[in-house]
């Protein structure tokens, strides 16, 4: 039929333009980065079987983790508040309660032994030039260092909660550098409600002070992530978080070492805040399309009726 031929021509040229300005052009504009599926293949495997009890002793004792970190789930508070910590280290060191559930264990082991290397920020921190990473490497407690590191990782895994919410994942992995203003969340955590404006302002000053330290540490204030899920493709975010240097060479953002499951949780939180209408959209879409399918069928019958004796 002639109309279908005309339609085929229109569809062909429309799709050609679409292909040219979308998949093709974007493929040319952005280099393609293959992900590693959060395998961290550049880091060595843990060869030793860890002993959680000994690991606990090391974390509390010779490892000296608690000099900077808190483990709130085990009743160990942070040695200083977030603002003071940021003033000392540039960024508030993370709480260690749930790191065993979030991060890749190879990454944790490598991090304990050589933070700047595991975090992929050796371009920023070079001991030879006197630029030390604020986290001090663990040089061993006298025994086999690989065994000791494996023990500590085993300890963190043993105390990690079985279930972690999407927001807790974001809080630990991203939230000490990135704010999320659409969730009233800053680098200091959820913004409390204040009865008096002066208290709200005082809190805001604390946030700004923290951000100033962070700015000095990172070179610029890391961006708010409220809309990042729509501002970047899923593939970009995944490969960027897995290894920021692949997508943005020279960036001061460290590799955070999330496991695949850990990243999925973070992504879920980013989606919940940045694209909250997604479930509604997917639920309503088929109904609207169904309506127009029925509409078109009825319209076709009406057209048939109106044109019945014209030819």
């Amino acid at each position, binding site marked *: 039929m*002639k*109309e279908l031929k*005309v*339609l085929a021509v*229109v569809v062909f*040229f*429309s799709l*050609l*333009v*679409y292909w*040219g*300005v*979308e998949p*093709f*052009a974007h493929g*040319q*504009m952005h280099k393609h980065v293959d992900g590693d599926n959060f395998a961290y293949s550049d880091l060595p495997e843990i060869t030793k079987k860890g002993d959680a009890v000994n690991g606990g002793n090391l974390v509390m004792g010779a490892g000296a983790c608690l000099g900077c970190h808190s483990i709130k789930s085990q009743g160990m508070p942070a040695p200083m508040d977030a603002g003071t910590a940021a003033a000392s280290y540039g960024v508030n060191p993370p709480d260690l309660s749930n790191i065993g559930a979030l991060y890749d264990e190879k990454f944790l082991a490598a991090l304990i032994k050589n933070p700047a290397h595991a975090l992929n920020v050796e371009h920023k921190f070079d001991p030879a030039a006197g630029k030390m990473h604020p986290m001090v490497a663990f040089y061993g407690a006298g025994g086999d260092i690989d065994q000791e590191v494996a023990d500590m990782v085993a300890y963190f895994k043993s105390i990690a909660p079985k279930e972690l919410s999407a927001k807790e994942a974001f809080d630990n992995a991203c939230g000490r550098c990135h704010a999320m*203003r*659409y969730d009233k969340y800053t680098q200091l955590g959820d913004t409390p409600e204040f009865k008096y404006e002066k208290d709200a302002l005082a809190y805001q000053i604390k946030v700004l002070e923290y951000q100033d330290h962070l700015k000095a540490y990172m070179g610029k204030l890391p*961006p708010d992530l*409220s*809309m*990042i899920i*729509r*501002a*970047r*493709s899923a593939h970009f975010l995944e490969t960027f978080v897995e290894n920021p240097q692949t997508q943005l060479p020279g960036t001061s953002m460290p590799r955070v070492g999330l496991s695949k499951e850990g990243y999925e949780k973070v992504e879920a939180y980013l989606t919940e805040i940045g694209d*909250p*209408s997604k479930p*509604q*959209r*997917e639920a*309503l*879409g088929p109904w*609207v*399309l169904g309506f*127009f*399918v029925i*509409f*078109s069928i009825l*319209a*076709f019958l*009406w*057209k048939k*009726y*109106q*044109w019945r*004796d*014209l*030819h």
Partner: protein
Amino acid sequence: MAKFDENARPFSEKWLDERLGVVTLKKVLSTEYWIPKDINFLWAMGMVLAATFGLLLISGIFLLMYYKPDAALAFDSVNYTIMTEVGYGWLWRHIHGVGASIVFLIIYIHMFTGIYYGSYKKGREMIWISGMLLFVVFSAEAFSGYMLPWGQMSYWAGMVITNLFSGGSLEAYGLVEWIRGDYVPGDAFLTRFFMLHVLLLPLVIIGLIVLHFGTLRLPHVNNQKGEEIDFEEAAELYKAGKKKESKVIPFNPVFLSKDVFVMGVYFILFFYLVFFHFNFAMDPVNFDPADGLKTPPHIYPEWYFLWSYEILRPFNKDLGLIAFGIAQIALFFLPFIDRSPNVAPAHKRGLFNLWFWVLLADMIVLTILGKLPPEGIYNDLGLVAAIVFLLLGPALFVITKMEKKI
């Protein structure tokens, strides 16, 4: 003083007719507005455009209730208030965003249909010119609307496009500042584009739509063969019940029934895009807030401006601006460049057929190149495609001058 029937019931047809002439109006605009029978679905694109404009208007009204034209608040009013807090705000925004992009696809289909079938000639010049005016004002409407979410692409596209007004070597930066109301795009820039987008340009568009409809009434719509129809005679045949013999149909309900069917199919596609495939119309880059200190690695206009953008790019800045200027107005003159006496579909017009497909292919090539980074082979291809476009004008004059009467 005209005569009024004292006994006519208020608001009855007779009562209204005596006061407003509704019976005549209905005949003129609908039941006795004659359309050729020999048409295909491309003739429904006008109504599809009107429906899309309606969707844009309605969704725009809902968005306007929550949008804040303020450089400090605009981004969050769109991305947080409308997308998160307002019930179905996301739906209105997606309809508006997808509609703004798709409306140009339909405009281009509508334009190429007109060129293919020669619907801009012999009494139909004003249809083409009013249509081109609509295209230009729609472009301005789309550009001003693109500023409003105040994302990275809003800001930088605004910067680039307003810079064009410096006129290359004329260095008329005073004019650029006058347009922006500031040295760089800022609050004054945003609020004036807001005014243009929600008031002045929509008013002009509505006026032009009325004019565009009006231009159709006397020369009538063209048909698939470009045949000259005696509409009065054909209408008499139709009214006498000889529908098979008559070459025309009334707009309402016969032509309309086909329009409505085409619209139904179109809306399936439209809402598929709204719900499931919207990134092409809502560029991810624009979900980053505007930042005057951070230039995005690639700045490109929306797809429907790419072909004219690519005519600007491959030349040096003065030649580029001149070429760009010519491209903007060249199509207006189409009815006068085409010297052929024939109103017929392109495939019946010899060399003109070739000209048509070269024009289409060239504009698609320009569109694709316009988005690619200007480097290496793309620059050379862009230069060739831009020169081809500029030569198509004189070529049309020569080709149609030689064309024999069919």
